[in-house]
């Protein structure tokens, strides 16, 4: 039996997060009443004309810079003509042969051998990124269809990869990386459920070792990242089965049905659209100066993978924590801000954020957060300085999270400050030393780690209320005897 290699390219549409639409100043926000975010231009009323939103173009340039694309100094706008009730003008302003960005790549992280082990990295080549306008949204009901034009005219970038992925896993890593990077530059929130990111996949297979491209099938209606992966995985299998059965793969567009875990043919190559592209006479080509492009390049922040590398190598954070912090700009921003206030314990800071903060915020809107980096920096410091025990710290964190009170005040109000009764602790230490002669002997024989048993016993007996630093100090004194 032959071995096959899948070849996959993705076309990803991403809504740019701009205040206004691509060709008019009508605003856009997700989830508003239907047809309230429109104007005469969005609705394509007779006589209306487009005016380009410069902020959208510059944002797209920034995305291009981030992915190492070549940015066009001049690019034109084309009309893509087709009739559909969600398109107010029955054409879409897009870019056919002069995209804003060419080439470039998206770095992806492949799966590691275990959850806590970093996977290898590779680059997925991009073909282009171009800018276009979104269309409205159709809803089909039993008594007819309705259309909401709120979304119509929202700026989109279409990120077209080369056929450079070979498995559903790579597709997953690619989409995750896109999401992470686009969020990092604030280009989009990339929420697929809200339609902020949409993906079509081109899939073909070939005999392993071959360099020729097979007949490609386009998959549509892939509505989540896992949906894309399932759809692609299924399509690869479908094509392998068909080929094994001696059937030819037909160039077609197939619609993925996530519920049925199956795809059905939408249209064949013969019935493919003729979009009758031509240069939009209402928009002159745009030109970008070197300085304008350079300014966008400068605004690209430290990218997630670079950040992760820095956390791993200079802050010595464990991989698992970095893999939580780095893809999420909000978490890594919070971490950096806390670090800036208190640098002595990055691991503790990172753990608070990656575990407690992330868990507590859950699906709450980040904007409503009462806990700030000031709170966390103070909390970590209080623990480090032995003012607060680890166990009480959890309580203080929770209180600060809910009320926004500073940890020092909470500690004071609740009387959580550690007051170590050194005499009582010494008595406890002596009891434990007497009760566990074996680890004591081992310790005295030079085995440092044996002490952990004693420490554990002491923490248990002090119910975690005494800081480890105090326990260590007194225990050491007792052992010296």
């Amino acid at each position, binding site marked *: 039996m032959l071995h096959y290699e899948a070849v996959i390219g993705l076309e990803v549409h991403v809504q740019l997060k701009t205040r206004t639409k691509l060709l008019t100043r009508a605003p856009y926000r997700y989830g508003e009443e239907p047809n309230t975010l429109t104007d*005469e231009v969005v*609705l*394509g*009323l*007779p*006589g*209306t*004309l*487009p*005016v*380009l939103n410069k902020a959208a173009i510059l944002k797209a340039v920034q995305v291009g810079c981030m992915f190492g694309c070549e940015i066009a100094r001049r690019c034109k706008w084309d*009309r893509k*003509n087709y*009739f559909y*009730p969600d398109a*107010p*003008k*029955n*054409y879409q302003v897009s870019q056919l042969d002069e995209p804003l960005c060419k080439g470039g790549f998206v770095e992806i992280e492949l799966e590691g051998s275990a959850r806590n082990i970093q996977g290898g990295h590779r680059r997925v080549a991009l073909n282009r990124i171009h800018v276009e306008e979104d269309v409205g949204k159709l809803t089909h009901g039993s008594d007819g*269809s309705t*259309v909401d034009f709120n979304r119509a005219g929202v700026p989109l970038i279409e990120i077209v990869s080369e056929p450079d992925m070979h498995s559903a896993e790579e597709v997953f890593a690619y989409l995750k990386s896109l999401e992470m990077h686009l969020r990092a530059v604030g280009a989009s929130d990339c929420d697929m459920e809200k339609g902020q990111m949409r993906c079509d996949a081109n899939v073909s297979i070939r005999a392993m070792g071959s360099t020729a491209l097979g007949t490609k099938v386009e998959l549509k209606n892939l509505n989540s990242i896992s949906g894309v992966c399932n759809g692609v995985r299924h399509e690869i299998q479908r094509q392998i089965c068909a080929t094994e059965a001696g059937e030819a793969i037909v160039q077609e567009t197939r619609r993925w049905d996530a519920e049925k875990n199956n795809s059905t043919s939408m249209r064949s190559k013969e019935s493919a659209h*003729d979009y*009758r*592209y*031509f240069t939009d*006479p*209402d*928009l*002159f080509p745009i030109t970008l100066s070197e300085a304008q492009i350079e300014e966008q390049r400068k605004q690209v922040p430290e990218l997630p993978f670079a950040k992760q590398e820095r956390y791993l190598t200079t802050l010595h954070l464990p991989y698992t924590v970095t893999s939580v912090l780095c893809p999420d700009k909000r978490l890594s921003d919070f971490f950096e801000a806390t670090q800036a206030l208190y640098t002595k314990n990055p691991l503790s800071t990172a753990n608070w954020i990656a575990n407690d903060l992330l868990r507590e915020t859950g699906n709450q809107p980040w904007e409503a957060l009462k806990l700030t980096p000031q709170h966390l920096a103070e909390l970590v410091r209080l623990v480090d300085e032995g003012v607060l025990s680890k166990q009480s710290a959890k309580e203080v964190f929770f209180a600060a999270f809910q009320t926004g009170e500073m940890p020092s005040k909470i500690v004071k109000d609740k009387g959580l400050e550690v007051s170590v009764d050194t005499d009582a602790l010494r008595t406890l230490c002596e009891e434990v030393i007497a009760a566990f002669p074996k680890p004591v002997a081992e310790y005295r024989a030079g085995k440092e780690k044996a002490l952990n048993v004693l420490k554990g016993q002491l923490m248990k007996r002090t119910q975690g209320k005494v800081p480890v630093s105090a326990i260590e100090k007194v225990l050491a004194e007792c052992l010296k005897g």
Partner: protein
Amino acid sequence: MEEETLFLPLEQLVAGLNEKRFSSEELTKAYIERTKRLEPEIKAFLSFDEEKTLREARASDERRSQGRLLSEYDGIPIGLKDIFSEKGQPLTCASKMLEHYVSPYDATVVERLKAAGMVLFGRLNMDEFAMGSSCENSAFQMTRNPWNTKCIPGGSSSGSAAAVAAGELPLALGTDTGGSVRQPAALCGVVGIKPTYGRISRYGIAAFGSSLDQAGVLARTVLGAAAILKLLCGADPKDATSARKEVPDFCKEIQNNRGKKWTLGVPEEYFGDGLDPEVKEAVLAAVDFYKQQGYTIKPIRLKTLEYGISAYYIIATAEASSNLARYDGVRYTYRSPNAKTTEEMFSLSRSEGFGSEVKRRILLGLYVLSSGEYDAYYYDKAQKVRRLVYNDFAEAFESVDAIVTPTSPTPATKIGAKSTPLSVYLSDIYTVSVSLAGLPGISLPCGFTQSNLPIGLQLIGKPFDEGTLLSIAEAFEEGHDFLERRSRV
């Protein structure tokens, strides 16, 4: 008020208002009376909101009494071709497709007329979606030529030209994609100017061929056209293709240029086969007039003339096929009651809502844009021809200040006389190249045929040099008395 007053040139109407010989309301009422009397014969108006018009006139009189005039032309009535969006007014484009559409916003030019305090006087008939040059393509009515009601008024700004010629109005706005202001002006014996592409914002004007469409002014005199043109021109943030060029005071330029002896080019290609002998004679007589005035007359060549019409009909129809795609039965347009599916909603609404000429041009446009089996790329080729046409003119303008040609190869023909679409398309031959090159062009009366039909003279100018063009036109007007002639109606 005497009927003669209604035929006065703009500056004298302004003087009449200033000297309180009549109020804006009186003037407007007089035009309304005359319009009501003539409309059964002329049929220039598609709709007329009398109450609104009089309200605007009274508001102007109110401003005048308070000394708060918005401009020199405050209180002067002006008509709009039914292609300009005016808030709260119908915008039909003379199409069944938009029969019940009311615009919720003002076109930029309408905003500017309002800001000048002008009285917006009715909605004027046209060829459907500005496609045609006879008015025979209006879905609603056939506007008549006031000089002979058996004849076409020209088009597509048919109602605008006929209403001004008949004295129903002193001024009107039209649009010109391939000659739609100049040709009806010629056929109705009035002045019609289309400025350089980009001079006037296209925002709010239902699009036909976006890279060619320009608003224009129809008036009884060159000075009148110049005055209104000045109001309309200038960059508009809502139209990315509007030119960021300074707008001179055209009337002042005309005054400053009086007595100047310009150099005029006469292209031999524009006087060849197909040109009516009476038109030829009148236009050559005009050339002679200039010569006698001391102008330098220079024979020139514009070899691309014959290719212009093909390139024009490819570009204009391609753009139209896309521009008119929005009229689909989904929202504000005609929707076929026979449609059962989405597909039918599109196809039947468009089949039933558009007239045959519009459908013909949309089909042409779809065809030239299609990436067919042989990949013809008609559109790209036509754009190259367009460049050549422009170069042709640019070369000529190295040695002349303006070019003189006939506006239309024939005077107004009888309604229904031109039977094939091609014969209709060819009547645009002298005007489309000017549009392709984006140049300013003006048509003004230069004589009459033996059967008393007006003949138009076309002057073509350099880009953004409307001032020179208007000055040369005015010199001709000054030396003739065509203004004294009245149409038969």
